[in-house]
């Protein structure tokens, strides 16, 4: 499918670019050199976690540090760079970073630039079925005694972290490395192809036109530009998928304490409700972050509630039956009272669920639609897609950002190999290893998350008893559990 024209900022289909190019050339031959494009080895569109990690990886590696690289980002990066919050306030956009992602960030020298006191490792996962109560517990075989601090390292399942902490840390690392031409606060107005001159034939090189008037000609154009990637449209790559008709509601929560096992052993909780999974993930101290996948109507209700009623709904989501919960979604207000009455009549083990939420931080309740998208390919001639531009995953496994880091690590390695073997880093021949390494792995993960979502969306029918047997069986089977935990920890999947 050819890319569509967004007028004024044309993402132009390949055939149309031919005529544009002619115009461009005409314009050129008779005008001054003022508009001569700047030639770069890598132009990365998108300054999110994926784009920033890629540039950091390229700059940090002596093999690729000679490449001429540029970053294009629509936002003003100064705000990200100077991002700061008081120690008792947390952004509502958090992600779980797997140990594999953290190792990668360490290897490119970025991890130390994060505000580490705002990063929370967790060591256990409690996952259960909201309809049947079947439960699975993930931990790395810890005894009940909290291990010594250094021992905790190896037992970490993942790290909870604010996305802004990551992008801010990456930017600091990039500033330290230097050598990146940064075009921030600049929108991509159009992407066409480069010119042809007597000496050079850049007709297959993407030419990025910025709102600032700059023109960047790219040996390799990297689309790290999110789910609605203009780079992907330019390359004519479609990203089929579907909307889940679910929204993810996020919020920063204050809990009654720092967790059932204290500050040393933190626990992540996820309960599968018929409307979708609700997850409570530990942040430093008494704080947690919420990711609640639910229907758009329920999400609208949750966002409209008073802070007190919202807190009651979150507590209810981990404790009350799906029927009670459904009823409380129909109330306009008064969920706090409703909850305190119903909880008295709901038998539960308080230590099997998160501690009580006592407050929600102001302005942190938000929601976004959930989608599954997978691009048909990640590469085209002189184009590579990473992160959300390549795939959007259901957040229930907390893998989205990690998949993006995995893409970046693989693409950086692919570029390094191409450089050491004299290949043109932009051609598909050089990019093929990236595609073959990442596509299948991402596809498996997207499929697993999608099936899990569908499996647990049913509140009755033949699947319900089966999935409980499944969850209990998984819990009893150590090898399968460690397989699942290794996936969650981002360890490479060995298919063969």
């Amino acid at each position, binding site marked *: 499918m050819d890319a569509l024209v967004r007028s004024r900022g044309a993402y132009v289909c390949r055939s149309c670019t031919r005529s544009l190019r002619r115009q461009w050339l005409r314009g050129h031959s008779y005008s001054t050199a003022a508009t001569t494009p700047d030639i770069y080895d890598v132009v990365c569109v998108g300054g999110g976690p994926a784009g920033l990690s890629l540039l950091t990886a390229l700059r940090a590696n002596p093999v690729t540090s000679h490449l001429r690289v540029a970053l294009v980002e629509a936002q003003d990066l100064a705000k990200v760079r100077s991002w700061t919050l008081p120690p008792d306030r947390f952004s509502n956009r958090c992600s779980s970073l797997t140990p594999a992602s953290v190792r990668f960030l360490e290897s490119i020298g970025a991890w130390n630039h994060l505000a580490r006191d705002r990063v929370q490792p967790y060591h256990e996962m409690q996952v259960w079925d909201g309809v049947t109560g079947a439960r699975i517990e993930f931990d790395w075989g810890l005894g009940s005694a909290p291990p010594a601090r250094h021992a905790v390292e190896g037992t970490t399942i993942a790290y909870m972290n604010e996305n802004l902490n990551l992008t801010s840390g990456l930017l600091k690392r990039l500033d330290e490395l230097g050598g990146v031409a940064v075009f921030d606060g600049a929108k991509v107005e159009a992407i066409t192809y480069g010119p042809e001159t007597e*000496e*050079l*034939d850049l007709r297959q090189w993407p030419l990025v036109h910025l709102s600032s008037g700059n023109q960047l000609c790219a*040996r390799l154009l990297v689309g790290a530009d999110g789910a609605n990637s203009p780079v992907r449209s330019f390359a004519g790559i479609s990203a089929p998928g579907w909307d889940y008709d679910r929204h993810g509601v996020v919020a920063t929560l204050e809990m009654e304490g720092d967790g059932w096992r204290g500050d040393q052993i933190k626990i992540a909780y996820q309960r599968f409700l018929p409307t979708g999974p609700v997850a409570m993930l530990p942040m430093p101290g008494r704080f947690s972050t919420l990711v609640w996948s639910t229907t758009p109507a329920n999400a609208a209700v949750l966002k409209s509630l008073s802070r007190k009623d919202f807190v009651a709904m979150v507590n209810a989501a981990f404790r009350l039956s799906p029927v009670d919960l459904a009823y409380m979604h129909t109330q306009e207000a008064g969920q706090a009272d409703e909850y305190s009455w119903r909880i008295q009549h709901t038998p539960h083990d308080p230590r099997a669920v998160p501690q009580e939420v006592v407050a929600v931080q102001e302005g942190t309740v938000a929601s976004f639609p959930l989608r599954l998208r997978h691009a048909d390919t990640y590469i085209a001639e002189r184009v590579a897609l990473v992160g959300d531009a390549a795939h959007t995953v259901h957040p229930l496994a907390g893998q989205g950002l990690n998949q993006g880091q995995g893409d970046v690590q693989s693409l950086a390695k692919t570029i390094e190999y191409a450089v050491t*073997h*004299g290949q*043109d880093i932009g*051609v598909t021949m050089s990019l093929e290893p990236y595609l073959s390494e990442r596509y299948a792995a991402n596809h498996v993960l997207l499929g697993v998350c999608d099936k899990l979502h569908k499996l647990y969306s049913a509140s009755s029918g033949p699947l319900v008893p089966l999935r409980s047997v499944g969850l209990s069986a998984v819990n009893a089977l150590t090898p399968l559990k460690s397989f699942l935990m290794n996936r969650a920890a981002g360890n490479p999947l060995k298919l063969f």
Partner: protein
Amino acid sequence: MRPALRCLPRRAIRPTPPALQPPAFTAAAAAAAAAAAATTTTTTPSQAHPALSKSRSFTSTPTHLHNPASASVNETEISHFSALASSWWDPHGPSRPLHLMNPLRHDFIRRCLSTSPDSSSSSSTTNLRYLDVGCGGGIFAESAARLPSTRSVTAIDPSPTILAVARDHARRDPTLAPRRGRLAYVNTTIEQLPLPERPADRYDVVTLFEVLEHVDYPAAFLDRVGAFVRPGGWLVLSTIARTWTSWFTTKLVAEDVLGMVPRGTHDWDKYVNEDELRGYFASKGAEWGAPQVMGVVYVPGAGWKVVQGSEKVGNYFFGVQKLH
């Protein structure tokens, strides 16, 4: 059954030098077929049926070279590879195996350079000057010219058609622009290329990839090519051993059954065995060092794999350092 066709003494009589142009070896694949035909009036010792006579007439040099300029070039080879010109850079075209093999060439060259006695000093591993003989569409030449350790690449091929493709393709990369001096294509044969007078001005690395199997008189050809290596430099080549396996894989399967490479790409009788190459270089006395060898196997779908011992069977790399 190709081999069966070759019962006749082959290099016999070919008429006069192709009126073609200054041929020379060719390309990557094409290579140079030596002496094209032309040149010789003599017959080389015939090899009769290859399956029976196992050695290629390695020592046979054409005795009377009427036209030394075209000594290595075989006209048929040139026209075969010229016809492939348009698809040379198509990553999914018939040259795909060559594209996939290219990174291994660099790995092998690095391995060779690292065995030089002076490899610890950067002078022998940086600022390198390459001569790529039979460069074809420039797959290796372009890649060598991009390496930071390269000072310059001179790439020659006798086919003007294919060199036009090479030059045109190089325009797609500003790094390779002629004014930057990293890559120069010359339409010539090795016989016509002037040999730098001072040995020190000769090349650090002379490469001959997938060329030798297209050359009619390998010994004479290697004599000439070897002269371009500076003392301390390396001659690095890759070719195919003449075995039943290579006949089966490169002729029957690759050309006839799967059509992976175009029919007529290879002439099995021209394949050169690793021990024949060893013998050739050993016969030159102390001029050349002990060879480095690496056998590779093409696995469809997975690309080229280094397989120890496979140099006796099929495709292999061969590198030898000029000591004096």
